């Protein structure tokens, strides 16, 4: 599988996320995206770093491809919801806006690649598009769980950018970042459990007691 195919795949999974209403399948799509992303270190890191690349790939696969989906599917069962009902922005409109975001990502990637960032314009496009999609999901969806998926997509985008746009990062930093993201999602999962128990729903827009 070539690098470009991988980036196109990352873009496509993000588009699927924008149009999907079943939480169950959204979780799987994000997991698939994470799993595909975990091959990235193997493809972009210099051969001298082979051991490190394999380690990072395995860790990413384990966390993003296995632990997160298991954790989130469990939260989903606990919360007893299946789909995102009445999102704040409808699915067709989300897809249309997604195309606009893709254009924006292309433009931004082109500009940045022009001043010497990133291994290719496509890699940056994929990274930015994942970030935009993640932010969009956080803003435009009502279920707490979809917001977590948005956060994960955002993190995937940043991860891709870190690997393809920056080059060398100390392994301790990489490890720390992965650990932080792991704990963040873990805590969000627990928080969703608490919220669903306390409120009997996980609609974020109904968490509106605190004002002023």
């Amino acid at each position: 599988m070539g690098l470009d195919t991988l980036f196109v795949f990352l873009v496509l999974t993000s588009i699927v996320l924008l149009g999907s209403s079943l939480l169950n399948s959204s979780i799987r799509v994000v997991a698939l995206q994470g799993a595909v992303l975990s091959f990235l270190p193997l493809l972009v890191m210099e051969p001298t770093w082979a051991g490190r690349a394999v380690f990072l790939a395995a860790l990413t696969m384990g966390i993003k491809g296995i632990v997160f989906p298991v954790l989130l599917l469990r939260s989903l069962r606990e919360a007893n919801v299946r789909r995102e009902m009445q999102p704040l922005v409808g699915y067709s409109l989300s897809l249309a806006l997604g195309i606009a975001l893709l254009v924006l990502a292309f433009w931004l990637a082109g500009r940045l690649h022009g001043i010497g960032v990133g291994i290719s314009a496509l890699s940056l496009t994929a990274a930015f598009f994942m970030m935009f999609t993640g932010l969009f999901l956080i803003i435009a969806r009502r279920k707490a769980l979809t917001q977590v998926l948005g956060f994960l997509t955002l993190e995937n985008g940043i991860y891709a950018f870190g690997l393809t746009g920056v080059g060398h990062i100390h392994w301790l930093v990489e490890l720390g970042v992965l650990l932080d993201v792991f704990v963040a999602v873990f805590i969000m999962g627990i928080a969703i459990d608490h919220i669903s128990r306390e409120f009997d729903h996980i609609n974020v827009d109904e968490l509106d007691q605190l004002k002023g």
Partner: protein
Amino acid sequence: MSVGYYFWILMGLPMVGAGVCALLRAPRSVLTVLIGAAAAETVVGAFLVKDIFAGAQDSVAWGWFYLDALSAYHLAILLLIYLLSTVYAAGYFRHELEAGVIRPGQFRRFGILWCGAVAAMALVIISNNIGAMWIGMEATTLMTAFLICVHRTAASLEAMWKYLLMCSVGVACAFMGTLLAVAAARGLPLAGSDVMLWTQLRAVATQMNLPLLKLAFLFLLVGYGTKAGLAPLHNWLPDAHSQAPAPVSALFSGFMLNTALYCILRYVAIIEVATGGAGWSLHLLQFFGLISIVVATAFILFQEDVKRLLAYHSVEHLGIISLGVGLGGIGVFAALFHVFNHSLCKTLAFFSAGRIGQIYGTHSMAHIRGTLKAHPVWGIGLFGSFLALIGVAPFALFMSELQIVFAAMDGRAYLALALFLAGTGAIFVGALKHAMAMAWGEPEHSAPALAAPASAAGITDTILVAGSLLVLLAVGLWMPEWYRSLLLRAAHIVEGKL
């Protein structure tokens, strides 16, 4: 022992504390561990900062740990607030444990997270590696999220979710900025693992890719700015501060916000060196500062909840600090001075508000009346800290705000000056009205929620209140020479002049 080991101890002590808390059952032993850890941590910290306070340039260990005037100053404030809040937490939770408001298990979780949060904040301050700095910042969010809902209520869960999500996303943006900053240094002659070190980045700042560096700063400002509670990114702040138990609110307001602002200041230094002191980043800070002051004014005037009122004061004061830095020159000095003043004052304010909230069983200001009579110590604490917060002379906050006014006049930033004076003026009147009503109003004869603390004004309470107010007065009236020189050096670091 080499200074490097102190850094490790500083990081390790709270972690060990957290581990020990996890093993303990009795709340009393958890309390002892918390106080012991705080005291030991303060001693270690004092060893670390003493040379720098005495005039040393900086101290480095293994390249990754770094302390200069700017970070030593912040570390000292962190440890002071941490120590005070832990001592206060002992009294605060003792009553709640006795009254059964909080269960031993919940208190143990508080102990673990409390220690973890301090370790995370210390990591931010002493990291030379901008990646490690980010890791610490995100860890701070994660550690403190469950501190907000120590009392598990619907409202506190809501506040916690908002905090967790907004700050995680914000801090994710900051990581993007961190990566962009590293990318801006690509192709420069830096050894592989040095490329994320702040000291190295500042040394090569003039050769960095400037457009990329500026883009990085925008991400960093928005990202860390969210965590610092700068308007319009402050939405999580009043909820989190009002729902968290008082010691947590105090640590949030007294230091966590400053940790985020500290990160921004580190990047301001790099940008200022890179642009040759053009003030590009300073203008942005000025802008965010003014928005924060204006937004806070609007919410303070019509506030009904005392802890939310204090939270908006935090937005205001973080805004004042950003404005001060943004004005440059003497403004940076004044802003850094304001950091300590605000931290100490706001900590005292949250302490008082928390205990008075326990006594009256509510945080609604309409029901808190006659605090001076009902509980003189905390009544004086609340009223005194309000006076200091709104800038009554000769408290230290008045002095630092006055210097910011001078800085604005020096820099001919008349629009900023007008907005600053209008905002603080309106807040002065509005908050004074709230504070006087709470202090002298006719007390309602309703049954207090927690009877115990009303009668017992412990000696520790008195020392906390009197000590804080006296220090705020003393620093306002007279600034020791070493303190002035420390602040000057820190200001030079921010302005990229060192």
